């Protein structure tokens, strides 16, 4: 197990390095510099040149890259150009809270409703709940989350006025964004657990369990779900990841000061260091989510956790 984790971490480091290189190169190819944007329009070309020199941006690329890597290893991701002089780490840190809250809520609601629907659907196969769940599942993955967000904002926020249309003044401001983001995890998890549960119900060991004479409730909880919920772990990783990227549009629509909005803003403002910092952060979170998912799966499924021992006759 330790060997496995070690191997995965090794790959993670390589990938992160690759991403750092890639992002760095991309930033350098980008036309324009951080100082010829709107924010700095008052600077003369000479002042811009001086600013570039101050941040070592006029030195050869490999020098810059080397400096960047060495700084990164020390935990210094440079400073933002847009938020002058503020370290990138602080900029990101100050905005990560809202994204975490909205994301966590979205996943929790999505899983709670999605898993419940999916299980009921499988138990009453071809019944009303089953058909309803399938419709919801298909719609859930077909309606882009930004469309859902826009509609929620308009009808519930604006027209009905039940919830704030945006910004970040109270917890209520997180409700609509979380609802918009929860649709995809809801649909995916419902569909997935429905398929898994239907599959488990066909298995031989369920017949054995029934032959023991237990209640339907016990059959469901102790035998069926115990087996069908394990694979659900595998999709949680990708769900988390989708939330990260989904937040880009949602935060823009609801004007939430999160890292998704930070990313899009930095792209518009050519704020190299922030972009790089965020890209590395996203990659790290992505790979971490996948790694945790894999480890969790191997711990929960006894067939993997305990390698088959000897059992001679």
């Amino acid at each position, binding site marked *: 197990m330790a060997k496995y984790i070690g191997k995965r971490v090794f790959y993670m480091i390589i990938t992160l390095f690759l991403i750092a290189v890639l992002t760095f190169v991309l930033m350098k190819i980008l036309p324009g510099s951080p100082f010829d944007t709107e924010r700095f329009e008052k600077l003369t070309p000479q002042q811009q040149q001086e600013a570039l020199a101050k941040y070592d941006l006029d030195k050869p690329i490999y020098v810059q890259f080397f400096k960047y890597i060495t700084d990164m290893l020390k935990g210094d991701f440079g400073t933002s150009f847009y938020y002058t002089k503020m370290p990138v780490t602080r900029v990101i840190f100050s905005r990560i809270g809202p994204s975490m809250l909205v994301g966590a809520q979205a996943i929790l609601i999505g899983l709670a409703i999605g898993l419940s629907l999916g299980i009921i659907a499988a138990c009453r*196969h071809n019944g009303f709940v089953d058909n309803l769940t399938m419709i919801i599942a298909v719609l859930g993955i077909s309606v882009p989350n930004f469309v859902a967000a826009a509609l929620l904002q308009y009808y519930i926020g604006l027209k009905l006025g039940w919830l704030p249309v945006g910004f970040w003044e109270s917890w209520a401001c997180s409700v609509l964004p979380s609802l918009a983001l929860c649709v995809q995890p809801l649909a995916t998890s419902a569909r997935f657990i429905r398929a898994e549960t239907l599959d488990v*119900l066909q*298995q*031989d*060991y369920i*017949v*054995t*369990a*029934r*032959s*023991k*004479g*237990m*209640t*339907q409730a016990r059959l469901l909880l*102790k*035998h069926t779900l*115990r*087996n069908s919920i*394990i694979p659900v772990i595998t999709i949680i990783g990708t769900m988390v990841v989708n939330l990260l990227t989904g937040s880009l549009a949602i935060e823009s629509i609801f004007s939430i000061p999160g890292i998704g909005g930070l990313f899009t803003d930095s792209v518009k403002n050519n704020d190299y260091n922030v972009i790089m910092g965020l890209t590395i952060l996203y990659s790290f979170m992505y790979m971490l989510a996948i790694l945790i998912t894999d480890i969790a799966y191997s711990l929960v*499924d*006894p*067939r993997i956790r*305990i390698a*088959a*021992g000897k*059992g*001679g*006759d």
Partner: protein
Amino acid sequence: MSEKKKLLEVKDMYVSIHTDSGVVQAVRGVSFDLYEVETLAIVGESGSGKSITNKAIMGLLPIGGRIDSGTVLLGGKDITHYTEKQMRDVRGAEISMIFQDPLTSLNPTMTVGKQITEMLMLHKPGMTKEQRKERAIELLGMVGIPNPTERFDQYPHQFSGGMRQRVMISIALACEPKILIADEPTTALDVTIQAQILDLMKELQKKINTSIIIITHNLGVVASVADRVLVMYGGKFAEVGDLDEVFYDMKHPYTKGLMESIPILHSEDQDLYSIPGSPPDLVKPPVGCPFAPRCNECLKVCKLYPPKTHSFSEKHMATCWLYDERVKGAK
């Protein structure tokens, strides 16, 4: 030996299974009895309805399965009309079942010990947790599993095929049911292990005084454990009788065909005999005798009407037109 009590009476059972490709009439009017402390073997090809009949008895039909008519009397009471709650008390406590593939028939995410104690918990509420564990370990020892105390906490995938089947037997017999239904218990096992498992079953039968219904298509298995044999074909009953009667004085052409298909180890013949053709389609079952198309003693009437049942001795019966008095040279 008619002093033996009848434990189970199946009368005229019809079972259908609703699938996407139509309604399969899996069982079409099967009747048989089971006496106490005997072993009844139900023999037939796949598709003959032998498995489904027994699942129907326990109310374990798959999704889409239904008992259309017929009765099953357990100790005189008709269990086909039992509520789910009543059936729960029957399953495991009065009738138990073990299945063909021990690899897939045990819950992979539950320890073996827990699967046994579960059975005890369901039907013997008086026991404490420690008592259940003790009894389970005792049972594991009884079925021949070494180091039962350690094995108690292990998972099914840590056991070999034969061991798993022993575990299944220990689960099934935990509450000492009156009837054990064994659905092809040795088919998925090595030949050497088969004999061990059958011996184990006979040994436990004596200890607990259970009756066993063993479902199989392997006549060797039948010969080694059965007291009586019931032959099924095409969802209907073909022949029933004591082991000797069916093996040496077979009446039904299908039974004859089965016997002839057993390869004899030291014979000169190089060709293996098998009954030509394949089992009938039970979505559109044939009108007459289901075996007619493959029977080499087929009469014209066999294809038109289902045959009647004829008795040859107290226990020996067969359903075949050959024994009708109108047939020239009939017995």
